[in-house]
């Protein structure tokens, strides 16, 4: 019946139906009964032989009529109930098909019995591939064993609930890709047996937004710290540099050239210290980066000049393979140098035990015209898969003396350049960081496409 109808109307109508039913049955019964009485009276006086027959006929008619009325009423009822059921089923099917959740119907032994289109889309399997498979198919290999235990305990005390509250649940696609999910379990006890309906939401986007928001808060906090640090640092530095200028301005002419030079060095470095601090603090704030053509090959060579010797001392060799004549990219030289230094420092730290090789490669990207790529690979300890998602987080560090700012800053700088930074790593083999930067001049064929 119409789902829009309020339950009160439904109830009063079924009462009315009952009354009509009762009246109909009573009237039929009275009419037939009357007929029977009249006929039997008439027959009784005339021909008693026929009375029996007539009586019986009348009785059959009466019962038949009564049965007919009852049966038609019941048939109507049943038809309506069936309609209701069909509609409910259709509505459920529509929900199942169009729901924003992925929905799985799972039996107590963990076998998938049905999956809706959203679930199919989410996990990348076809319906046929899913049906009959254990649900563990849909979580990463390394978590399967643990899930078996959870499932057993769930069915021993079934209860509809949110799954894995507090823990992070991970789904695995057919192609091996993993994504964070949220699952709510609904236990149904049916005559065909117990089933669980699992409602699955892909929370990748939501988590990303949450992470962005948290990052934003950290930035604001860093902005406040930056103001404080700048004040505490620049005032003493101003005292140092101004006093040196005073000494130089008021000194007797006898001030030796050497002393003069020493003072100048101190002075220059006081100002440099404040510039470095400003640079660091600026990157904590939203600073517009400079956009000048930067030659990546020069950048690498120049940065390495200060690093080679230091690396050699700790047993790290550096191999450089730069495509000659690589077109300049568009960016902030100082910021990019900082990115490179951070990556080199991390690579060195990763190879602290026993040395190794850092390989720097740079080339244009044939499949992405308008971009150049630079990669820094090491043969160090590598990064655990579950840490990979965190290394760009601010303050994330596994080093006793690390700040956890290095990669965070790299990522920020790359974002400000409309570039990107990616990482690939294998524990025990090494790590490769790849940065991608827009070229200063967009190549011809791209401009035509645009």
């Amino acid at each position, binding site marked *: 019946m119409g789902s829009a109808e309020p339950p009160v109307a439904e109830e009063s109508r079924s009462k009315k139906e009952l009354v009509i039913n009762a009246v109909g049955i009573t009237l039929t019964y009275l009419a037939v009964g009357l007929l029977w009485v009249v006929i039997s009276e008439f027959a009784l006086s005339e021909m008693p032989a026929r009375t029996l027959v007539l009586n019986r006929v009348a009785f059959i008619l009466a019962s038949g009529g009564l049965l007919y009325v009852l049966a038609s009423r019941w048939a109507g009822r049943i038809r309506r109930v069936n309609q209701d059921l069909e509609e409910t089923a259709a509505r459920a099917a529509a929900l199942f098909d169009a729901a924003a959740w992925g929905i799985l119907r799972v039996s107590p032994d963990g076998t998938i019995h049905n999956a809706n289109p959203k679930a199919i889309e989410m996990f990348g399997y076809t319906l046929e591939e899913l049906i009959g498979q254990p649900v563990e198919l849909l979580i990463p290999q390394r978590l399967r064993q643990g899930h078996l235990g959870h499932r057993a305990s769930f069915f021993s005390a079934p209860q509809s609930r949110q799954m894995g509250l507090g823990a992070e649940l991970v789904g695995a696609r057919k192609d091996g890709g993993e994504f964070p999910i949220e699952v709510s379990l609904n236990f149904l006890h049916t005559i065909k047996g117990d089933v669980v309906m699992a409602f699955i939401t892909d929370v990748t986007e939501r988590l990303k937004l949450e992470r962005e928001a948290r990052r934003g808060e950290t930035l604001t906090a860093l902005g406040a710290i*930056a*103001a404080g640090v*700048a*004040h505490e*640092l*620049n*005032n*003493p*530095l*101003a*005292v*140092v*540099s*101004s*006093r040196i*200028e*005073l000494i*130089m*301005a*008021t000194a007797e*002419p006898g001030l030796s050239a050497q002393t003069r030079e020493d003072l*100048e060095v101190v*002075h*220059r470095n*006081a*100002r440099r210290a*404040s*510039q470095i601090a*400003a640079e660091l603090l600026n990157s904590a*704030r939203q600073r517009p980066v400079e956009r000048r053509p930067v030659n990546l090959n020069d950048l690498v060579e120049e940065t390495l000049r200060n690093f080679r010797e230091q690396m050699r001392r700790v047993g790290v060799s550096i191999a450089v393979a730069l495509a000659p004549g690589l077109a300049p990219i568009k960016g902030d030289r100082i910021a990019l140098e900082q990115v490179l230094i951070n990556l080199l420092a991390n690579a060195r730290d990763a190879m602290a035990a026993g040395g190794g090789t850092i390989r720097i490669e740079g080339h244009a990207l044939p499949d992405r015209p308008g971009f150049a790529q630079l990669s820094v690979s090491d043969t160090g300890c590598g990064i655990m898969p579950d840490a990979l998602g965190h290394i760009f987080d601010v303050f994330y560090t596994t080093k006793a003396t690390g700040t956890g700012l290095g990669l965070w800053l790299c990522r920020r700088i790359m974002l400000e350049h409309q570039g990107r930074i990616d990482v690939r790593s294998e524990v025990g083999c090494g790590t490769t960081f790849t940065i991608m930067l827009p070229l200063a001049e967009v190549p011809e064929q791209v401009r035509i496409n645009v």
Partner: protein
Amino acid sequence: MSDRDPPPEWLEHSPGGRAPSAFSTGRRILIVDDEPDLAESCARLLGLKGHECFRAHGQLEAMTMIDQLVPDLVVTDLYLSDGDGLAVARHARRRIRPLPVILMTAYHSPDAVAAAAEVGAVDYLLKPFSMAELDRAVNAAIAPDPLPVRAPHG
């Protein structure tokens, strides 16, 4: 002096590179900074240029000195430990004959630049500044036709 700063002008004019101690511009400058060492640096260096300098280390002290001394120029830090250097600047600007003001700050932020523009400061110096920069700013401020406020470079 960093390599890039040109030598102070008086160095070129006075033989032996010494400040002519008797020389006086007759200008009176109030320097306000809660860091006494820095206020002293500025006062002594500007003194070498022949200006008469006074020092204040707090907001109230500075305002009182503005009223009593009526200097030709106020050089104040934006941040004072007992309050806001902007209040000092406003106090100097609110006089019947507004005094030129130079702001100093250890922290370059868009807010600070906006504040400098709002009070009508002649210049805005980012710490640590060189004495050549300070000298340039002071000369521009006490010149008859003060330059409009400009963003710092650096």
